[in-house]
């Protein structure tokens, strides 16, 4: 079937575009406010304005090239991003005790952001392949590996928040690609296994959960065997690996899993963030009138804790506006995946939207004190050039799909 454009220009997804632009605008205003008071970060908002322009250009450019090009380049792109991740581990720049950045002259960026997009592309390409049937283990097992490699590399930096977005993206895309929900949960048990081990130190919780899950899902024998073998291997290896770690390495992993245990560091930030938001009340203290941020009580107020400044100055009304804009962006994004006719485009959309959603959730829950401090910025709002450009690319890819939603 051919699409006729009825004499109109190609249609981008207007609500999605407006939501993104609105968030960037709120971000700019808040960065201005957060860096307004005299101090180390004064005047950073002009740079943010510049980055916003660049990000818009990037979105435009990315949307213009047919997604088929990204489809065919998925694997090379994925390999390059793995290479960059390896480079970070070797020669990355540290900030707050973790190596996350790569520097090339004036250019400084987090390859994990690029790896996320690359992983989405490569998974979309795999799942869209003609004979791919995600009910079959030999089709989804390699995908698991594709996501776990960047997951492990980013976790090693260490960057818990970003690394967890890989399994989350994988889950959403497997589900969208047609994998039965039960099999999906079973397939991810090794990941839960590792996480639960680190969080609770024992495997009882996990074992119980696994038995219940198997009883409910009733997988095929072959699937069950593979799942049990994988979990057995993980369960056997983890305590051994753990015992082989030096004390300082164990401590590092423990703080990594439970950052709240360090009261002088992230615990302090959370409390200050809660005070900022809570004291904002329903209508806020007014633009540029926040006191917490002015006192430098809120560290990283223009980056990771920008939402706290929104909450303090614009109150519940402002904070809710931001939530609703994100909700619009995300739901509209998933709807785009529903209406897109091309398999690759639809899968890519789900992956990208899920990545955005995960970042938004982790950051917002952190600022209200319901999630640990992991150092994830708020997409589109937080100060930061590369993050904003990557967000621009993500939105550009979504609009790319929107422009061609009728194509097969």
């Amino acid at each position, binding site marked *: 079937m051919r699409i006729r454009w009825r004499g109109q220009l190609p249609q981008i997804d207007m609500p999605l575009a407006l939501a993104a632009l609105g968030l960037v605008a709120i971000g700019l205003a808040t960065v201005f406010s957060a860096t307004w008071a005299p101090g180390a970060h004064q005047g950073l908002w002009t740079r943010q304005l510049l980055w916003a322009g660049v990000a818009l250009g990037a979105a435009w450019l990315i949307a213009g090239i047919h997604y088929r090009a990204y489809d065919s380049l998925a694997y090379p792109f994925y390999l390059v991003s793995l290479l960059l991740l390896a480079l970070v581990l070797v020669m990355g720049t540290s900030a707050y*005790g973790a190596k996350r950045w790569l520097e090339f002259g004036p250019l400084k960026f987090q390859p994990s952001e690029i790896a996320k997009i690359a992983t989405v592309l490569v998974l979309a390409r795999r799942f869209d392949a003609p004979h791919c049937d995600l009910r079959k283990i030999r089709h989804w097992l390699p995908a698991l590996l594709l996501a776990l490699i960047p997951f492990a590399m980013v976790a090693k930096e260490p960057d818990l928040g970003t690394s967890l977005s890989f399994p989350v993206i994988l889950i*959403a895309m497997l*589900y*969208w690609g*047609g994998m039965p929900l039960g099999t999906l949960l079973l397939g991810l048990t090794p990941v839960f296994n590792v996480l639960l081990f680190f969080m609770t130190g024992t495997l009882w919780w996990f074992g119980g959960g696994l038995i219940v899950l198997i009883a409910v899902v009733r997988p095929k024998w072959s699937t069950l065997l593979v799942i049990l073998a994988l979990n057995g291997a993980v369960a056997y290896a983890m305590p051994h690996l753990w015992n082989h770690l030096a004390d300082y390495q164990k401590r590092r992993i423990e703080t990594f899993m439970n950052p*709240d*245990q360090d*009261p*002088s560091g992230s*615990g*302090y930030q*959370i*409390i*200050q963030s*809660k*005070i*900022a*938001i*809570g*004291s*904002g*009340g*329903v209508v806020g203290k007014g633009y540029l009138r926040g*006191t*917490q941020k*002015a*006192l*430098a*009580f809120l560290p990283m107020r223009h980056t990771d804790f920008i939402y706290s400044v929104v*909450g303090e100055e614009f*109150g*519940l009304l402002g*904070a*809710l506006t931001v*939530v*609703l804009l*994100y*909700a619009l962006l*995300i*739901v509209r994004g*998933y*709807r785009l*995946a*529903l209406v897109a006719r091309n398999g690759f485009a639809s899968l890519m959309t*789900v992956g990208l939207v*899920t990545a955005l*959603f995960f970042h938004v*959730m982790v950051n*917002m*829950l952190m600022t*209200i*004190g*319901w999630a640990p401090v992991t150092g994830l910025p708020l997409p589109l709002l937080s100060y930061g050039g590369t993050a904003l450009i990557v967000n621009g690319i993500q939105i550009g890819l979504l609009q790319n799909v929107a422009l061609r939603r009728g194509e097969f």
Partner: protein
Amino acid sequence: MQTSSQARRFREERFALLAGVALTGFALVILGLLRLQVVEHERYVLLSKENRVRLEIIRAPRGSIYDRHGELLADTAPSFTIVFRPFPVESTRAVMLLHRADWTPRVAELTGLDTTEVKERVAVANRGGQTAVLRRDAPFSVLAAVEETRSELPGLEVQVEPLRHYAHGSLAAHLLGYAGEINQSELDERADRGYHLGDLVGRTGVEKNYEDILRGRDGAEFVVVNAMGRRVARLSEGPGQPPVPGHDLELTIDLKVQKVLEEVMAGVERGGAVALDPRDGSILGLVSRPAFDPNEFSHGLSQARWDKLSSGGANPLLNRAIQGVYPPGSTFKVVTMTAALRAGIATAATRFDPCVGGYQFGSRWFACWNKAGHGSLDFIGALEQSCDVYFYQVGPKLGLTPLEETARGFGLGDRTGVDLPQESRGLIPSVAWYDKRWGAGKWSKGLLLNLAIGQGELLLTPLQLALMMAEIAEDGRAIRPHLVQAVRGVQEFHPQKPAQPGVIASPAVWDALHKGLEAVVASGTGTAARIPGIRVAGKTGTAQNPHGKDHALFACYAPADDPRIALAVVVENSGHGGSVAAPLAARVLRRMLLPDSLQTPLPRPVAPVADTTGAADAD
């Protein structure tokens, strides 16, 4: 098309779930916002407007240090510290007060610092947002003055903090070391190890070596303070953390022995003395002169006082017992004798050419300290009388390498591995060392004559000297000297493997050495070290010092038939080992080995014959 509509329903189902998850997530955020901004709004307004939340460090008390019988040597007691704490900049009143011209001079007056120092510390605190210590262990009168004027001096606060206290003042100062306030570069270096501005950190001695065991871990709590920076309440929410006290250490030091050593060395201007137990290498006492009082460092030291302590010729901070290096003089003849007996170039009964007051080697005349000459001596007699001529003849026959090997076997020329920082190696020259210094083959065998009697480039520390004696007492068994016997309630310390191999030789060799060393004290150059009823084995030494008077050395072990103490005494620029160092050693041995009934002071021992001759390198 049924399959198509089925597929569509299938996708719509999945869309519904994804969107549902997303909306649930956002609903959760909204719930959190409602709780913070509506339900608990009042409380957070209070916290943000009138009050501030601040993280307060609760300092962990440092572990105490005890002697081997549980006598206290160092502990921590609460004290009052005046600090400056940065406060919210928007509190206009406080800022205006801070910028009033008299703030700095008034604070300087209260804390005893000068105005530039106050300015500097306040600037550092403001930059880092941490408190700055202005005066430790402030007396009550000053505390009262601070309390009275606090509303006019914003930022100034009194904190209760553990203060390091050394129970016996300068006693054992060098081995205990001291703990000082952490400085900025140390803080940066140890950023990830939980140190905070104002923490004490071990700088020398046991305090430094066992820093990680002694220090514990600081705790923290969130407190609510008002706009002037005053503490109002403890915050109920938020993770606090109780401090973990440091562990207590039990040293091998015996307070009684240490006291005796201190007392005996009290009249010594510069020098060091070490007493250790040859059976297990535990150090019983260690003294260095001049000494300092580590309590001074706990109170915070002024720059002038620090300069005085750390520089100048006397340098009281230097631990001469392990860091001071001295030419061994005749004490080294013990090494020469051991090496010669091991190599088989002589036995206890071997007689060389008789001593006629000197020895002709090539074109050079090597003088004996006794110009009159000792006549014909066997090896034991040569050690007893410290006859240079006998040892001149041993040197070239022995050669440099066997001598060096034996010295290294005793642990000379290298760190003993004692659990104290900054130990010196001393120096035992080797063939390679001379080749490097003079060029291969460009040095003569004449050097060996000097080395054989302990002259030349040789250097050793008092601890190495005591260790050597202990090892001879134990027939060459390698010993690791150590200072800590246990971390209280946690673990016992077992002596580690010694750093040196020890010296392997036949029983006849050790027998000859024991006999010779006993003869030194019984009837030779070391008679000043005699004590009634106990056999003492020792060796005197007088080290020539180009810069002034000779250094006096004496090393011994006792009782000779059942050695329980090895002792070395070194007194700088004082004269002869036999007349200066040996009597000091005798006083220590007396107090350690004789029952109380025999403790009446004896008249000063008669100086041995050697001293009355006044020969230049006499011994």
